[in-house]
């Protein structure tokens, strides 16, 4: 019995960790944190950088909010969360300036603006303030990874469509000299607009459209499956009824 409970708990934690990846993805499902998703996803590396910063802030603030959740009076909870979040944002800003200066220059004003990312305040208010520290940490880390994943996907399309290449080592200390994992030298369809803000809207819109289309297909498939099962159960019930009627008729005979 105890073993079953532990397995259930582990399953629940795994679900808590992975829910932000697809099912409750902050960008593509809840449409949260769209400001950085539009502003800094011109390249994969900038997207990755912003994602890492958000993971740090989201996980740390979730942990602290959960730790002191019982001491914070209800009426001052939101200002308290904002102070906690802004503290981590300031720290992350200083650390970025110290250890990833190029990324700091690239993200610029959007680092302090992490404070107003709805995702972070939303998780503090809706999850961390009501759950234990380790669950809050898992939630923050998982949601942060989902956010990072969404940014990187957007960044991939935008950078590739605007330059025909995917570079690395430009903003993050990933290599001693910058390089590229994809580079189509003869790329002639460079669409600069995708590197600009309008490109962000276009890519997010197209990706949302694709994800919604896939979700609708899945839902329709599920619905067809459900209908098929209902029909099958109806058929089986009818079959049983007929069988019983036959048996009854045989007995009477």
């Amino acid at each position, binding site marked *: 019995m105890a073993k079953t409970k532990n397995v259930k708990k582990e399953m629940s934690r795994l679900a808590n960790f992975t829910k932000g990846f697809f099912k409750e993805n902050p960008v593509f499902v809840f449409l949260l944190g769209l400001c950085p998703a539009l502003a800094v996803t011109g390249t994969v590396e900038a997207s990755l950088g912003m994602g890492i910063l958000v993971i740090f802030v989201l996980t740390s603030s979730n942990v602290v909010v959960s730790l002191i959740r019982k001491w914070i*009076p209800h009426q001052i909870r939101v200002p*308290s969360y904002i102070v906690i979040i802004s503290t981590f944002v*300031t*720290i992350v800003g*200083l*650390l970025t*300036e110290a250890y990833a200066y190029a990324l700091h220059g690239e993200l610029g004003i959007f680092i302090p603006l992490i404070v107003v990312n709805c995702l972070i305040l939303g998780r503090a208010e809706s999850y961390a303030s009501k759950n234990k520290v380790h669950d809050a940490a898992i939630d923050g880390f998982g949601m942060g990874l989902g956010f990072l994943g969404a940014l990187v996907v957007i960044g991939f399309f935008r950078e590739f469509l605007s330059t025909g290449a995917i570079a690395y080592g430009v903003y993050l200390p990933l290599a001693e000299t910058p390089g590229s994992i994809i580079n189509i030298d003869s790329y002639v369809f460079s669409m600069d607009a995708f590197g600009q803000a309008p490109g962000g809207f276009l890519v997010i819109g197209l990706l949302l459209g694709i994800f919604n289309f896939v979700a609708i297909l899945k839902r329709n498939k599920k619905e067809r499956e459900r209908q098929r099962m209902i029909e099958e159960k109806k058929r089986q019930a009818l079959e049983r009824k007929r069988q019983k009627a036959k048996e009854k008729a045989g007995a009477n005979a």
Partner: protein
Amino acid sequence: MDNLLSKLKTAAVLLIIGAVSGLAIFGTHTLTEDRREENRRMAQLAIYLDMFDGAVTPSDDDIVAIEDSSVKEMVTMRDSSGNILGYAFRGEGRISHGDITVIVGIDLDGNIIDVQIADSTQTPSYVQALRDHYLPRLRSQSIVAMDYGFTDELAGTSASAGMSFGNVRRIIEDARFIAADFLSDPVMEAYERLAPDVASFDTFVVFDRAFTEEQLIKDDDGNILAYAYLMPLEFDGETVTYVAAYTETEFIGITVFAFDDVPQDAIDAVEAFEGYWNSDFNGLTFDVDGEIENTIATALTELNTFVENRTWINANDLDYVETRYDGDDVSGYWFIGRKMGYNGVNVLEVLLDENGAFDHFAYNQSPDTPDFRNPLIDAFGAYSGQTEITQNEAEDAWSGATFTGESVYAIISAAFQYFADTLGDE
């Protein structure tokens, strides 16, 4: 009592959160301070070295801190042999949108090598607009005759990018002022020969004639000492800029911007005009010998004719009117006027024919958005041949051009009025 305790608890929680938060930020700030400063210095150094070809890392002796100025640091850039290549100025600006750090490179000839934004917390899209559209225009300009040319070509950037550009401009102005102590200044030296008390000069009107620009020469108190006219002339493929100055009644004289690459005979040629200095410009003709001297005399005669035919108005938004002739007959009147538009002062040219009918107007200088202001040329063109104008749809021919349109309307109306009051009776 419970209520008081509850409030005390609330205050204590906020206090503790604030204190811990402050300590955490202070600790991180202190621990990373040196590294952040080092990063900033390295980024600035990279810009310095990128600006000056062949430059080596400056020594501490070459870096001078500046006080009481938007420029905070002046760096003497040298090559590996120790020869000075130029000067880099690091300036800082602040507006409500954030801070900006700008680096200005100036070579030994007094030309801007480049202006770069090293660091900024101001609105990124506006800073990017400056980087892409405005700063490149400053390259290669002489610091003694800067043309900033900021217009809000990107709709909506008038106020915001304009404020960021204001920071950049202030830093460049301060850098120019400091650099003037180190560099020879052929333009200011030329103006001093014409007006010894000169302290500043501003572009007033631009022309597409033998003379290209009219500048107001001012003293320390801002009083106008003279009107200077730039005359760029070509000799053997080289452009030499001569400058002639006038008061409202006299021809003061002519001199030359004696930059290092100006041939000596082009400089010496102005000596042939010394006899004409400080004379009444009415009926003045220049009788000189020599090819260069005659080329100068031709341009100067065209300028003198303009000055003779020009009447100062200085009222009702109008600066002056030039009476134009076809032989001995009047062919038209060319007015210069200026009035505040949407993004600054619009300087307009209005041409009336000999009967005072509207011919056309043109922007002499305008900081307003080109896409908004230019349709007004066609809109007001509908009044061609008319002797009066009514303020109606033409003033707002393009959405957002209201102020621009009103400035055009005001100046054309003033030109009609001046013609009716003064010129029509002549």
